[in-house]
């Protein structure tokens, strides 16, 4: 699903690489936590998967494709198989819940009939059935993140990237979001989640990848957040 071979990333005008010689593989259907302090390279790691950036050295394979050799105009096709969720939800404030989710389908040219069918389905899945016509501003943070997850999942991606999805939520709401992500993972979708939330990582007992100053320092099956050396 994802394979990094000796990947390094140096941003222009910076001497210290954001990622240094990272090699790892994520299999189909896995649930992976990506941990590390701020500036450890988590965001760069995710941006490389999304091909927002290209790596400086090494190779990044996502969904069997070598991203370095993927031409620009094929990137949108690749991204349609990925879903993305962020800490700040990134909803459109002037569209209703249903419209926000439908937007992700409209802009890739899905038919109206298809949208009418899949939007209520995915809103039920994330537990927002009946709130289709609400505006994002009327919803709680947890509900807004559910809308964002619905939007990321509505096109049935093979891989879901979550960048600190619980960063703005209280612990109880976070648990709800994690249950939802777990449910999505059980449908066969691979999930890669960057997080600072110790409780969640410790509770879920999934694979943990830790980055420190751009290096891969830990890759542990059924790991915990703070690894005692």
């Amino acid at each position, binding site marked *: 699903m994802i394979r990094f071979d000796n990947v390094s990333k140096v941003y222009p005008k910076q001497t210290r690489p954001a990622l240094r010689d990272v090699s790892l593989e994520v299999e189909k259907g896995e649930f992976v936590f990506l941990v590390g302090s701020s500036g450890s390279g988590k965001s760069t790691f995710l941006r490389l998967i999304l091909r927002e950036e290209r790596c400086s050295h090494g190779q990044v394979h996502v969904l069997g494709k070598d991203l370095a050799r993927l031409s620009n105009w094929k990137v949108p096709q690749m991204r349609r198989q990925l879903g993305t969720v962020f800490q700040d939800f990134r909803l*459109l404030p002037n569209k209703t819940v249903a419209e926000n989710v439908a937007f992700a389908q409209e802009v890739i040219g899905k038919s109206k009939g298809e949208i009418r069918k899949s939007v209520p389905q995915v809103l039920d899945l994330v537990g927002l059935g009946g709130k289709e016509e609400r505006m994002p501003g009327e919803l709680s943070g947890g509900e807004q993140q559910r809308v964002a997850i619905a939007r990321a999942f509505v096109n049935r991606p093979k891989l879901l990237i979550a960048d600190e999805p619980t960063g703005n939520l209280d612990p109880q709401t976070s648990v709800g979001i994690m249950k939802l992500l777990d449910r999505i993972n059980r449908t066969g979708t691979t999930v890669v989640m960057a997080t600072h939330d110790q409780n969640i990582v410790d509770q879920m007992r999934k694979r943990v990848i830790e980055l420190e100053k751009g290096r891969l320092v830990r890759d542990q099956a059924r790991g915990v957040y703070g690894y005692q050396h």
Partner: protein
Amino acid sequence: MRAQFVLSEIGVGLRRNLTMTFAVIVSVALSLALFGGSLLMSDQVNTMKGYWYDKVNVSIFLCNKSDAESDPNCAKGAVTDDQKKQIKADLDKMDVVQKVTYESQDDAYKHYKEQFGDSPLASSLTPDQMQESYRIKLKDPEKYQVIATAFDGRDGVQSVQDQKGILDNLFGLLNGMNWAARAVMALMLVVALMLIVNTVRVSAFSRRRETGIMRLVGASGFYIQAPFIMEAAVAGLIGGTVACGFLVIARYFIIDHGLDLSHKLNLINFIGWDAVLTKLPLILATSLLMPALAAFFALRKYLKV
């Protein structure tokens, strides 16, 4: 692509940027109206050239008895028959000459009477005060100088006159005005393009949330850019339509009605409606493509796809 979605995006974009859109429309309209106006001006000058050059002659005026007394060019006396024969023979030998007609004193008197019959001056004039002349039609009206060098100062020749010289001053003025209009047009065009680039930038910035999400869910570059490009194209097309309206109204009021030059200046052959109408598609196409291209290049800079 779903047309309805794109159309609603364009509408939202144009309304959000109403003042900028208005500025784009006005500047496109003005620059293209000037563009069309300068094209029509060239047409008008060419029409007039064709009309007038057809009628202008080079005239060789010959000395008469009264010139012999007053004009230093005619100091050697009135023109003789031998001199006239020689001039005619020389003219016939010249390649640049298309046709030569001889105007006698009586002919000149008759023409003068026709033109100025009622003036008091005409009644005091007699045929032998008129000048004989050769009227020469040139194959190429520009070759006047050949005739002038050959006959100016020859015995019996009072002067060589080129009517085209008078017209050239007029055409020179019209051409000068035309170039001035083009310079203003070029300036307006630059302003219009800068406005479009800026409008697209503001538009892209105010919609960065949408475009960011579109990128993430895998919308194609074309899908993301199309609303911005069409927005610029629609604003441009409105401006182009206004410019076309200007031209039609200008033709209508200046030539046919209002100023009514076609009747007041009936010596001038004016351009017809066909000249105006053939310019309109060009102006509309420019108004559509130019802003679209400007937007496309602006987006490469301001909108990461």
